[in-house]
């Protein structure tokens, strides 16, 4: 295969219009997913949970693989796996210093189970590969409804918890003193994060969820520290990554994930550069009219 052919494999825009109508569901799913990933990612970054996201997505993968083997709903399986993982990490890893090791123990176990289920599964190989690396054609209307319903739950929970969860993430002691139910919030957030991971797994695949739930937020926090602009920017970056990834990948036979991860990585690079400029120009500059006396 020469370079030209490889390029043709990666970017193929023949019959684009016809294909576009086929992925309408996926585009809707992608846009909603960008919103979910970008907003949940804000707290993943603040609470230092990227490793937890990865751990949850591996168990979500195991759940989806089990569902595939048993012939039940893959969406249900991935949600169940993600919730079990999020619950375990929330309970066993409540203290930040235990969390890493708890996840390190859970993750290979989940991945191992997933490999076992996939090895036993005798169906289409595309199904197997899809759970790991993402798929877009598979978003039929019942699946889309699932996805939208789960996303709605995540978004409502995040909206309700937003302020106290920010407070508890920044300063748990003071938040507790002000009456914020810190421990309950942190447990509920883990479950919400589990749901967010499970829906992401369905589109970008278990291996690459971080590109959706971590990268956009990590990029956004480089350019703004406003508690309102940062999540909005994060959600926009995530949406651009997923929708852009879908649009680029339509014509090719390649899974969607490399497109999404590449866009989101490039956006991160741009934001980092912009942040560096901003810092050099004096982000920390004090207001000139009130220079310390």
């Amino acid at each position: 295969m020469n370079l030209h052919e490889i390029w043709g494999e990666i970017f193929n825009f023949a019959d684009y219009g016809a294909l576009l109508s086929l992925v309408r569901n996926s585009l809707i799913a992608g846009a909603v997913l960008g919103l979910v990933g970008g907003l949940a990612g804000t707290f993943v970054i603040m609470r230092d949970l990227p490793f937890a996201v990865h751990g949850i997505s591996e168990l979500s993968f195991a759940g989806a693989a089990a569902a595939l083997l048993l012939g039940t709903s893959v969406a249900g399986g991935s949600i169940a796996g993600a919730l079990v993982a999020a619950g375990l990490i929330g309970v066993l890893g409540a203290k930040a210093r235990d969390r890493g090791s708890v996840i390190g123990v859970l993750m290979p176990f989940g991945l191992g189970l997933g490999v076992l289920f996939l090895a036993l599964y005798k169906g289409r190989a595309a199904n197997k590969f899809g759970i790991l690396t993402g798929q877009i054609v598979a978003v039929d209307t019942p699946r889309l409804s699932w996805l939208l319903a789960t996303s709605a739950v995540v978004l409502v929970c995040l909206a309700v918890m937003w302020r106290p969860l920010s407070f508890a993430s920044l300063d748990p002691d003071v938040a507790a003193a002000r009456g914020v139910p810190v421990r309950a919030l942190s447990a509920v957030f883990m479950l919400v994060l589990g749901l967010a991971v499970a829906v992401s797994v369905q589109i970008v695949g278990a291996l690459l969820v971080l590109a959706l739930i971590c990268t956009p937020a990590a990029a956004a926090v480089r350019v703004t520290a406003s508690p309102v602009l940062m999540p909005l920017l994060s959600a926009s970056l995530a949406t651009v990554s997923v929708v852009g990834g879908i649009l680029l990948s339509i014509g090719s036979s390649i899974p969607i994930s490399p497109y999404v991860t590449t866009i989101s990585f490039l956006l991160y690079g741009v934001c980092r550069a912009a942040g560096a400029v901003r810092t050099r120009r004096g982000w920390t500059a004090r207001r000139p009219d009130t220079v310390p006396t």
Partner: protein
Amino acid sequence: MIALHDAALSYGERTLWRGLTLHVAAGEFLVVLGSNGSGKTSLLKVLLGLQRLSAGTVTVNGRRPRRGSDLVGYVPQHKSVPPHTPLRARDLVRMGIDGHRWGPWRPQGETRRRVEDVLGDVGAAQFADVPVELLSGGELQRVRIAQALATDPRILLCDEPLASLDAEHQQTVTELIARRRRTHNTAIVFVTHETANVLPHADRVLDLAAPHDSAALPA
């Protein structure tokens, strides 16, 4: 404002302090001393309603301490802020006012003005828009004090607010807090190891140093 009667605190078998009887009136400046692990932070947690006494009684503003009271401000023992926190100094102060409420951030003119006021009070107005993770230790400490003062509390609990500050900032922060009690008649409980700077402002000193039979000493 604060009344402890024959109070004791133990974690399991270990008694931190007992027989503690103490009254703090409005506008009074109480300095709490004691070695590491003597239970100073735990005492503040009792006053905040985050920790129960093992014996004795405690009242704050005439009632059992409860969480989330606007009448009590709290400056926690020094900690750095987590990295990658999308919050500016002004947002940290605002959390003291409505950070515990449900729902997303909403713009509110009145809250905004209040935040500007307290930031000005502690001399932090010029770095109001700096991300919290980029503030120096002393700046962050002043912003934390502004947060604690944001609800205009009648009692201010400060847990080693001078730790990690240079001599000049120690003085600034101490004077800031001492001024507060003169202007607003706020009762101050001030935990510290820095006796030199603080004792001149103190009305009374509570020494938890001898962990097993501590008592309130009039200064």
